[in-house]
């Protein structure tokens, strides 16, 4: 699996810090691809949500863009299950079903506080799909807070 940057290294993704008149926008993008082409390929990332001064994390949200037009569709599962999942879901899934446009899949949110969230990226069938995942940790008042992404498995 090709990892844009250093493979299996912690990627503190602070790409795209853009300050505009509207205020600060933090973009956390994780690009990757399934270069083995196998349908069983799964890329696995861990997303750490922490208080960087903006406030305690309440939830993580993510969405994926399938950047390769073919039969195979790219999807994600965001999961954190350290507490009983009765009040809030421990996992959510999202798939980019239209890979011929520049739009991302529906945004998913898992509200499990601070700590490490698991992010799995898969594709529906064999193919050398490329993708871009946007992931953010936010406070209960939807303020962006500390987010770091670590690659654990590339297939």
């Amino acid at each position, binding site marked *: 699996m090709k990892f844009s940057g250093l493979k299996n290294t912690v990627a503190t993704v602070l790409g795209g810090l853009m300050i505009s008149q509207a205020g600060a926008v933090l973009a956390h993008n994780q690009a990757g691809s399934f270069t083995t*082409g196998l*349908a069983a390929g799964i890329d696995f990332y861990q997303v750490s949500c922490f208080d960087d001064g903006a406030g305690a994390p309440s939830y993580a949200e993510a969405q994926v863009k399938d*950047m*390769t*037009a073919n039969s195979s569709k790219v999807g994600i599962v965001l999961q954190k299950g350290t507490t009983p999942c009765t009040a809030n879901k421990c996992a959510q899934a999202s798939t980019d079903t239209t890979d*011929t*446009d520049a739009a991302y899949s529906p945004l998913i949110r898992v509200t499990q506080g601070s700590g490490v969230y698991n992010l799995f990226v898969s594709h529906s*069938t*064999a193919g*050398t799909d490329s993708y871009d995942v946007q992931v953010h940790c936010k406070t209960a008042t939807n303020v962006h807070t500390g987010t770091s992404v670590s690659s654990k498995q590339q297939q």
Partner: protein
Amino acid sequence: MRIVKKPEMGIPILVMMSSLAVAAGNVLANDASNADSRAVFNSLESLQISCNANESQESNRELSAKLMNLASSNNPLDRVSALSQLAGKGSVDANIVQKILQAALRDPDSNVRAQAVYALAQQNCADVPLILEQALQDSELSVRLMAVDSLSADEKGASLLEQALSDEEEAVRELAAMKLETSSK
């Protein structure tokens, strides 16, 4: 070199077969000092394509210009993006479709070539089965995977899918087997 003449196209399509392409020096080798280097063979480099306008759609000038700009970018990701949007069968001028695809089949980036194969199969272009057959001979996994993905379940397509079952890469074999299984149902 084989000359295929399509009467309805009015344009002769020159198809240089892979053996001649190899003889013409289309086997590219990386720096010999690099122990990991291996021969790269772009099976599509010498193909000439011809695409027809879709009469049921009026071309969108804005979209055509946008895709042309993206396809001319120095960034391979932009070029892939142009081709993936082209695969969406948007109303793009046939001449621009042909220009973009022709250049993309010769692109040094295998991901661009792979996306070109898929986009071409979605367009109203001539000799798609022949081009896919050529793409199956490419040295790059991504190109061969896209060729298998683009094959239809007709007699010619099924024959090429059978051929892909003996590809050296498991992913290509896996996709070909899945497509054959699906088409047999």
